[in-house]
């Protein structure tokens, strides 16, 4: 369970209400594929991922990124039960997608960087604390059903 103070919860929900989920999701996934190119191993069917330009303008990347970040919205709505919220997705990532949980941490940190970029000074150190807890909680929940 993520332990968030009332202020931290507020940081999360107030920032989340202003996030352009589809755009930011595409941005975050794209950055992960550019900054950590070995993560492209999971996206063989996505077409051209050979350069930063190709990745960031790839429609499948944008679409999938949007899907991933939309799912984050569930986390924001269920801060007190991340494990339950992500139980099915956890099984999927283990049994069908075979994704090393290390990748969840990487993507989580990239989401934090994207938020910092969009919100600038509003993304205070205190805000970052809240979001680091959340992305760590989501990563942990997604890894929870691994066996």
């Amino acid at each position, binding site marked *: 369970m993520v332990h968030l103070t009332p202020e931290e919860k507020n940081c999360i929900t107030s920032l989340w209400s202003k996030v352009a989920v589809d755009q930011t999701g595409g941005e975050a996934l794209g*950055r992960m594929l*550019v900054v950590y190119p070995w993560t492209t191993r999971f996206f063989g069917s996505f077409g051209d991922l050979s350069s930063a330009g190709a990745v960031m303008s790839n429609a499948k990347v944008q679409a999938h990124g949007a899907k991933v970040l939309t799912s984050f919205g569930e986390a924001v709505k269920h801060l007190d039960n991340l494990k339950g919220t992500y139980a099915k997705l956890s099984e999927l990532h283990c049994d069908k997608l075979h994704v090393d949980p290390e990748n969840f941490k990487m993507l989580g940190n990239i989401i934090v960087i994207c938020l910092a970029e969009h919100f600038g000074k509003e993304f205070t150190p205190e805000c970052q604390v809240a979001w680091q807890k959340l992305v760590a909680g989501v990563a942990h929940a997604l890894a929870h059903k691994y066996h």
Partner: protein
Amino acid sequence: MSLTKTDKAIILTIWNKIATQADSVGTEALERLFASFPQTKTYFPHFDLHPGSAQLKAHGAKVVSAIGDAVKHIDNVGSALSKLSELHAYILRVDPVNFKFLNHCMLVTLAVHFPNDLTAETHAAWDKFLALVTAVLTEKYR
């Protein structure tokens, strides 16, 4: 994972922007590090780590200055940071995992201050560069 010519050009361009606010960038990165990853404070029991503290400012400036040295000698970071490498290996002995946390907080700070400059390519180049600096600083650990 070595730096390409393009990486080096990107790194230098961003450094020139960082240099104009070097001290505050360093201080903010540390502030974010200690807030988000409180276990890193265990290496500074002798410091006043409250935001705005003189020691925090001084140390932030020191950290960014060292990064600047690495940028200026980007073709031989090992040699440029040799003394710092020994310091971290024999005296400070900061567990290697913590460098990743600091690097992340540096990137967050850059994103906050230079949002238009931190494109995916730039983000990648700086992530690689900070990883290189980390490798040099932990090179002599064992």
